[in-house]
């Protein structure tokens, strides 16, 4: 299986999913399109393009030859983004950032403890001061008011 064929299959499935999800939206007529008309057109177009990728994708590189050496670290970093999404309003910006940066510097990158503390605290507190205090862009304070 080549990367183009995998991508093409994904686009076909995504197009079918959009067509299925669009069914609750009025389609209108060709002369007076409703809110579901354009998504349907785009979904059909995506399916066609996906089909072209599947048909012409035989010469692309094989999926198994794509290397993912950084995937574990990448997933840990992505986990930090999700943690920020879910936790920032509950525990506040500063605590969230201290935890995320502490994890990245200390556990993932294994910096020395004084480096971790210095970088984590200066960046988390410094960015809060820059955005919230200096630039007056409100950042979440969380349940503890911190």
């Amino acid at each position, binding site marked *: 299986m080549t990367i183009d064929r995998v991508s093409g299959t994904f686009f076909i499935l995504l197009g079918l999913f959009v067509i299925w999800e669009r069914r609750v939206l009025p389609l209108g007529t060709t002369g007076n399109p409703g809110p*579901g008309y354009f998504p349907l057109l785009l979904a059909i177009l995506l399916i066609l393009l996906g089909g072209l990728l599947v048909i*012409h994708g035989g010469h692309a590189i094989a999926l198994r030859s794509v290397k993912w050496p950084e995937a574990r670290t990448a997933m840990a970093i992505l986990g930090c*983004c*999700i943690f920020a999404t879910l936790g*920032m309003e509950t525990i506040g910006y500063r605590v969230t950032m201290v935890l995320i940066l502490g994890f990245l510097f200390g556990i993932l990158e294994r910096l020395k403890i004084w480096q971790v503390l210095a970088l984590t605290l200066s960046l988390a507190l410094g960015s809060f001061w820059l955005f919230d205090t200096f630039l007056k862009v409100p950042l979440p304070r969380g349940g503890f008011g911190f």
Partner: protein
Amino acid sequence: MEGNLQNLFLGFSTVFTATNLFYSLIGCLIGTMVGVLPGVGPLAGISMLLPTTFGLNPASAIILLAGIYYGAMYGGSTTSILMRIPGEAASVMTCIDGYAMAQKGRAGPALAIAAIGSYIAGTLSVVGLMFLAPPLARFALGFGPPEYFCLLLCGMVVLGYMTGGSVVKNLSMIVLGLLFGMIGIDQMTGYFRFSYGIVALGDGIGIVPVAVGLFGISEILATAGQTKRPVVIKPRFRDLFPSREELRDSVGPIGRGTVMGFLIGIIPGSAHIISTFVSYALERRISKHPERFGKGAIEGVAGPESANNAASEGALVPMLALGVPTGPIPAVLLAALMVHGINPGPLFIKEQPVIFWGLIASMYVGNLVLLLLNLPLVSIFVNFLRVPYKVLYPTILMFCVVGVYAVNSSLVDVGIMSIMGLLGYVLRKMDFETAPMVLGVVLAPIIEVSFRQALAMSNGEYSIFVQRPISAVFLVGALAMILLALKPLIMKKKDWRERLTEAEKSN
């Protein structure tokens, strides 16, 4: 002409205040840093720093953001010449001869010529922008929904063709972006589409989380675990001056790069990248000593660097005159204008002369500031390259999160950024260009509304798109592009796009 000069005077009176000069300077400095640091491109840089402009007046905000934009274009050449790592995609060609010059101990002159070429190209392109944008905007005042729909359709096909790699893949990215742009309230009927009960999605998916996710987070994910410490050549100030021969050899490439870059910049797609390839190829072809290319020819630095700076300002022509972005960076700049309550479009120049002419004047000032600051400070900027990546990426990640959150004070946006980061990471692995997707997200509401309004105007007759001459011209343009894209499939021969992609990958 006289009107333009009067307006330019208005622009300079806007810029020559202590506050705006300060923001122009700061923008240029931040932009240079963004350009110097590999992994932080101008798009992610502008998107991340957009919230810092919220407290500013619109003129200052756009002056600061534009400074970051062309500052990054300047800065990108530094890493290309000193490390053979392009700070941003448009500096790929500079790597070849720039790094070869650095290895021969001529890093200083290469940097100087890159800066001088960028300055000349940047300044002359502002002149082009100044004279081209206002008449284009006046012309576009006659555009109705059918013309806008066909213009955007043509623009998207051109974007699919002009972006490197497979046309089918690029078109898929545009369609995917358009589909993401369908999320939210339908502007004409008020229906919620694909929002799954999440109220924050009612306004649709914002450009900032998409841009930061696809260009900032995905870059961090793709380069995670990188431990290699880069070797950096550090030039001294006294070594920066080019010889008389190097200066003489650079004049022609700078002139040609400027004209070509500006014209290519107006076209949608990866114009600033393409312009550098075209410039390099042209210089090599017309050179009396083509064998010097690849071994440290100054023309190989002067041409592409001038072209990419001219193209970056050419790209502002459709954005400022029509309100239509031709690439993801103008799209973010457009979003920045909208955040400050300014409606982009053909009336922008007429209704907001202070901002438009202030921006033009700030570019003249900014280009000069960059020339005067960049060369003496190059050894300081080089020090940023010594920051270990394991310290750099968590810092960038933090700015991504806070930057995206601050736009709407919405954690849903941070979630969208994370999803887009993952999507961008996977798409890179699958050999997709993600820039067309960003543009799809931005243009989706405009193209859909234009389409439906045009049909409402014609009582549902599709012939309106071919009956009106301007829209018919755009449709013919789109058709011509599709035929050009099909040519290599029929002829079974590599076209210039495939050769360009191969060259880009080999560097």
